[in-house]
């Protein structure tokens, strides 16, 4: 090789080596990536949280939603992270996760009040490392605000409280495997050192296996040992245990191990491995085994090793959970979230609304009409599948939480609208179905993101009855659905009459009025029966049929208004336009009964309290008041025009 060529080769080699180093450095800063098969297997790991066993996927989704307000986030290097991948990064790459901007902050004041500089955007996301300098101030303020009654807190105060809570939750995630990531010092020249001859540090899994034996042996020899020696031995063991306990505390969040003792209902986490409750006796063998697998995974020696340990861990946990009858719903729940039935349902409703709009532009086009009908039917089928899967996962009837009322009411309202469409084929019921489907699903997603908690929670004791949930709750919510649909149909009637749309087509308005009235009657039947069933349930659980509790009164308001409408119509006080106007009011009353009474914060139905939707409700009530005013205006206008034409006729005569 010529000298020049050799020099060039050397230079290229050196340059190449710099490149490699640069690439490694870049990789160290880059967000770690995970094989698809690892993500899929991690998703179906069972975990016990909030009193139930669920997939790790669900745990990851709702933890991320709570912190981030969304089910995905984008890292600084542009990588989009979804819940399981995000969670794995938090658990196994805590240093990376500290830089994830996943703490959603809605008000600048939250950041400035703890002495930090806010981002330029009003609503922004912050990383743990950005917030960490103000941690103590944040917790001090949070402690102060937590003393205040929840409804008296300012929005900024509430968010500081939430943010502090979210930071704590994140700290528990990044510290969850600290016990396994570290090794522990073994005091030389002690019984410990003899038990761990492989070095002066020992891994948690090894220590946990052998410690009970060492402690037991020390106890048995204590009387024969010199005091100085005994003190040294005890101090060595005690230091080791304390060092491990300090690291184990955060592990409580990972309750993934079903205990061997079948009578024990609480699952175990790494934090339980050093619990003093069994006097530092042998930890549950399943837990030790899980810790051993997790330790290998935390060593991050490569995707192959990680996958092998994950497979072993999953296999053991699945078998253990299945033997307790606690695994069968895990795959169903993973399927429910993976297939995104509700997500697709929402967006197909949006698409269907576009198609419905086209049917107005091209009336009489039957193909388009059926395409639009199918476009409303498909998301409804997806929604019904989603609701059914939730029933299977929870072993409950379709409605037992406020969130589920949103799904169920949407499904019932759209299904009734579709049935009406099949009966009269005028396109109006279908349009309303599409609109309600879109709005209902939008509200469901918004509510889910706002609450940021598992939407399949365990129920309080009084609700633990599938019979009443299936009868009272289902019927009364069907009444809500029909009341809302009647209100929605009434809008078409009122605005159609206002803009004199197809004024000559009397049958169109007759059909609309009949539909509204029919839906109202259907709703009234369910509202009355549902309300009385609620009373009978209350009589069985609280000892009184009727207690004038706000939620009961809300349902009564619906019944009373429905009866007023029916009797006013029978008495001839209102006709079609009156029914339409009153139906809009019915929609407002349903909104009050469904959400409004929960905002009052009083009564026995405290399991349904929520907050933060007052503004939305106020906007709805104000808008609907305007619609009623429009309806009254239409009635007045028609009366005046009738009188004018009557006068003209008389003059002509």
């Amino acid at each position, binding site marked *: 090789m010529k000298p020049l060529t050799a020099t060039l080769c050397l230079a290229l080699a050196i340059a190449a080596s710099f490149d490699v180093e640069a690439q490694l450095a870049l990789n160290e800063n880059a967000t770690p990536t995970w094989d698809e098969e690892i993500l899929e297997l991690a998703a179906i790991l069972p975990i*016990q949280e909030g*009193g139930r066993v669920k997939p790790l996927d669900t745990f990851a989704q709702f933890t991320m939603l709570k912190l981030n307000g969304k089910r995905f986030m984008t890292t600084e290097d542009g990588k989009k992270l979804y819940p399981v991948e995000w969670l794995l990064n938090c658990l196994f790459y805590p240093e990376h996760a500290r830089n994830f901007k996943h703490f959603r902050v809605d008000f600048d004041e939250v950041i400035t009040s703890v002495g930090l500089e806010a981002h330029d955007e009003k609503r922004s996301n912050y990383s743990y490392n950005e917030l960490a300098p103000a941690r103590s101030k944040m917790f001090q303020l949070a402690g102060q605000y937590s003393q205040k009654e929840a409804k008296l807190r300012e929005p900024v105060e509430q968010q500081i409280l939430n943010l502090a809570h979210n930071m704590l939750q994140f700290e528990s995630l990044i510290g969850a495997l600290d016990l396994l990531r570290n090794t522990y010092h073994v005091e030389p020249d002690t019984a410990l050192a003899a038990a761990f001859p492989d070095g002066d540090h020992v891994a948690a899994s090894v220590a946990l296996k052998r410690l009970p034996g060492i402690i037991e042996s020390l106890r048995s020899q204590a009387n024969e040992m010199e005091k100085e020696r005994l003190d040294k031995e005890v101090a060595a063991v005690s230091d080791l245990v304390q060092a491990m306990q300090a690291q184990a505390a955060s592990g409580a969040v990972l309750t993934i191990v079903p205990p061997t003792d079948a009578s024990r209902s609480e699952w175990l986490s790494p934090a339980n491995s050093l619990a003093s409750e069994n006097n530092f006796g042998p930890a549950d063998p399943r837990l030790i085994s899980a810790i051993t697998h997790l330790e290998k995974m935390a060593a991050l020696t490569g995707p192959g090793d990680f996958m092998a340990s994950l497979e072993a861990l999953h296999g053991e946990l699945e078998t253990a959970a299945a033997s307790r009858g606690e695994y069968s719903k895990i795959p169903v729940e993973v399927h429910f979230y993976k297939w995104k039935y509700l997500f697709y349902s929402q967006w197909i409703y949006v698409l269907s609304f576009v198609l419905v709009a086209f049917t107005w532009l091209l009336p009489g086009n039957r193909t388009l009409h059926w395409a639009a009908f199918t476009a409303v039917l498909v998301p409804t089928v997806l929604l019904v599948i989603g609701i059914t899967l939730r029933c299977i996962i929870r072993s409950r009837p379709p409605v037992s939480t406020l969130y589920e009322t949103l799904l169920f009411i949407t499904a019932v309202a759209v299904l009734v609208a579709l049935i009406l469409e099949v009966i*009269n084929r005028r396109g109006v019921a279908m349009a309303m179905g599409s609109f309600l489907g879109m709005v209902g699903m939008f509200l469901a997603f918004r509510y889910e993101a706002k609450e940021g908690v598992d939407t399949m929670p365990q129920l309080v004791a009084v609700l633990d*009855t599938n019979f009443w949930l299936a009868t009272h709750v289902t019927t009364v919510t069907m009444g809500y659905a029909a009341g809302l649909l009647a209100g929605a149909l009434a809008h078409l009637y009122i605005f159609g009459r206002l803009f004199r749309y197809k004024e000559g087509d009397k049958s169109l308005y007759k059909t609309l009025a009949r539909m509204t009235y*029919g839906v109202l009657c259907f709703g009234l039947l369910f509202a009355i029966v549902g309300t009385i069933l609620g009373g009978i349930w209350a*009589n069985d659980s609280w*000892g009184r049929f009727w207690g004038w509790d706000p939620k009961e009164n809300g349902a009564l308001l619906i019944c009373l208004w429905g009866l*007023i409408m029916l009797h006013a119509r029978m008495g001839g006080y209102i006709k079609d336009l009156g029914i339409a106007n009153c139906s809009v009011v019915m929609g407002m009353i349903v909104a009050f009964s469904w959400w409004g009474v929960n905002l009052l914060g*009083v009564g026995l139905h405290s399991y349904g309290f929520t907050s933060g939707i007052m503004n939305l409700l106020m906007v709805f009530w104000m808008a609907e008041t305007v619609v009623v005013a429009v309806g009254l205006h239409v009635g007045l206008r028609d009366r005046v025009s009738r009188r004018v034409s009557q006068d003209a006729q008389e003059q002509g005569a």
Partner: protein
Amino acid sequence: MKYLSKLFHFLASYGVAVVILFFLLLDTLFGTLAQVEMGLYEAQKKYFESFFLIHDLRLWKLTVPLPLPGGYLLMILLFINLLSGGIIRARKSWRTPGILISHIGILFMLLGGGVTYWYSTSGYMRLYEGQSADEFVSYYDWELAISGTAVGSKEFVIPDDHFRHAHGDQHQDFQMAELPFTLRVSGFLNNCGVASDPNDPNAVDGVVLEPRGPAKEAEQNEAGCYLTVIDKETGGSLRGLVRYDIFRPSPPWTFELDGQEWGIELRHKRYKMDPSFTIKLDKFTRNLHPGTSMASNFSSDVTKIEDGSTRQIHIKMNEPLRHHGYTFFQSSWGPQNAGPNERLYSVFSVVQNPADQWPKWACYIIAFGMTLHFTQKLIRYLKRERRSPKT
């Protein structure tokens, strides 16, 4: 006769039905909103158990007094309207049997509401494990109980409807043949505290009762009153005061008269089971959802003891015990901060209601009637739709 007929037609009219239902709706709405500030019990009394009421209607910063008929009056009127219009005068044809049936159901339910309101009693029974009782205690009503060494284990009880009015300048005297004194009750307050004010003419040892507004939760009220004991023979008198304290056992006011010890206690009214039977709490069980502090269920194993025979019964949420017209519901438990080995108590709501099951039957009737009627209407609607032109 003509006027009677006119009155009947008026009472049976749709117009009256609409007006009654509308006012009932207003009462329900305002009575619900009022609960935020005045609590359920007071709102219930004002809006739903009254003949007339004045509602403070708030329009932005303005408060307008709005007179309204009360729920009690409206329900009586609704009953009359329903009976005359919905049943007697209603059209009876093959097209409308459902209407008639559902009206009968609603009438029956209203009647059930009336019977419950007039004749039911309710309260609670709190038992520690191993403890038993043959009586239950009212949540809201009071009574004065007089006991003394002269009368042995006998207790003289005065229910609060005899002395509730004895406040302000009013007082009420009670005399019983077996008691050597007349008891005068004055200054009764349904909710009060105590304060030191030696200058107050009513003060007893420098202590006076200080009035408080009604508690939001009516069972949190702490009643109190002044007592004067007047010796029937000498006319000499002694003064004392009694007050119920929800946090501590309230000691009776004790005094000595003619060498005999007497005690008078103000307490929540007690109801003896009639016919007599005893409930003994054997074990209280509280189950939590694993890993949480949320109760998944709580239940009590009790023994019912009656005429020497015993029966073991399990009472849990949504599964009460019904016996001799009394119903025992698992209501709550305590102490809430009890340690693992601490003795727990169980609280049962106890209700005696002759119309206990009426709403269930009413519900069946109404559901059947409405389903029948609306099905008939649906069939007619479908037939009409089939005939009407489509575009």
